[in-house]
């Protein structure tokens, strides 16, 4: 792999689990009104960092940056459109499924392959939604950079608050 000519035309393979998402989309949207999954009180409670013991095993708080959340008062469909807009702006591929899940994949090869992000929209109340963002592939530092320089500014218009669990930079 160190030899450059060997890498010509090489694309790091990516496991793609939702291959048939597109087909089901069309069938279902013809018959039922899609609605994002609802969060109940206990879902909200389980978002608390105090209930998440995985911190015990981590040395580095920075590693928790792989996942973040924001709230929005915009309807789920507007949030989806906004994500699609950002995807095309930064040349990410955009795949959505009927249960308000979105997969974004960067077109550029980063240090550890393409950056891929999953987003999922949940309803808290009919006028409040939570979007969960999770890095599913690629380099963590590149993901952090993309979030702070591109994604967050891009989402500014629709975001109410960002999850305050981001690590404090000392």
């Amino acid at each position, binding site marked *: 792999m160190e030899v450059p000519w060997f890498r010509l035309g090489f694309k790091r393979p990516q496991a793609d689990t939702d291959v048939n998402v597109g087909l089901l989309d069309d069938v279902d949207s013809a018959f039922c009104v899609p609605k994002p999954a*609802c*969060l*109940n*009180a*206990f*879902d*909200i*409670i*389980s*978002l*608390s*960092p*105090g*209930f*998440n*013991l*995985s*911190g*015990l*095993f981590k040395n580095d*708080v920075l590693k928790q940056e792989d996942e973040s*959340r924001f*709230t929005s008062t915009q309807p789920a469909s507007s949030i989806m459109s906004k994500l699609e807009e950002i995807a095309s702006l930064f040349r990410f591929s955009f795949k959505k499924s009927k249960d308000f899940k979105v997969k974004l994949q960067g077109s550029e090869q980063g240090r550890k392959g393409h950056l891929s992000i999953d987003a999922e929209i949940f309803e*808290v*109340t009919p006028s*409040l939604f939570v979007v969960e963002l999770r890095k599913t592939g690629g380099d963590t530092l590149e993901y952090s950079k993309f979030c702070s320089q591109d994604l967050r500014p891009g989402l500014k218009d629709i975001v*109410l*608050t*960002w*999850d*305050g*669990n981001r*690590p*404090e930079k000392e």
Partner: protein
Amino acid sequence: MLQCLEGISKLIDCFVQSFDIKVFKHVQGLKDPETIASETVFSVSEVEALYELFKRISSAVIDDGLINKEEFQLALFKTNKKESLFADRVFDLFDTKRNGLLGFEEFACALSVFHPNAPIDDKIEFSFQLYDLKQKGFIGRQEVKQMVVATLAESGMNLSDDVVENIIDKTFEEADTKHDGKIDKEEWRSLVLRHPSLLKNMTLPYLKDITTSFPSFVFHSQVEDT
């Protein structure tokens, strides 16, 4: 031959105890990984790896072989400046001896419930007790509200009281099938079986790889003679 070895080991134990030197505390600390392994879902080597983690956490503030609340917070949040209703509650549930300190056995037995292989009933039981803040045997509306408000505050989300009440109404509508204003163990169980994601915090995948993350270098000469 075995009896001879046992005799010598007992002699060494007495010798060590009579000195009561701190340095021996760690060597002597994990006397029976087999006992703890038999009380939990962990294997003996996993217990030893867990002990490495325990040693690290328990020596952070006071090096006494026990985890106090401050050390627990430090381990969870990497800062002892963060107060958390939930971390307190988790600590209290771990602290079965009720002395404000976690010994290794308490630590291992509690973490055992979070192992991916632990029985789901144990996870359901633990989470129920976690949310039963007043320890009355049921989860009341006030308790749920307190926890929701605390979580929202922690994440910087401030929702109006109306919205919070609305969320709790919907939750109780679904969970409180007996319509008595509280969620008992049975109702909690059926709620969780309908929404398995509610138990996601009850499983720590890290526990499966613990022997690689925290290698221990204890050699067994007497564990398995086969």
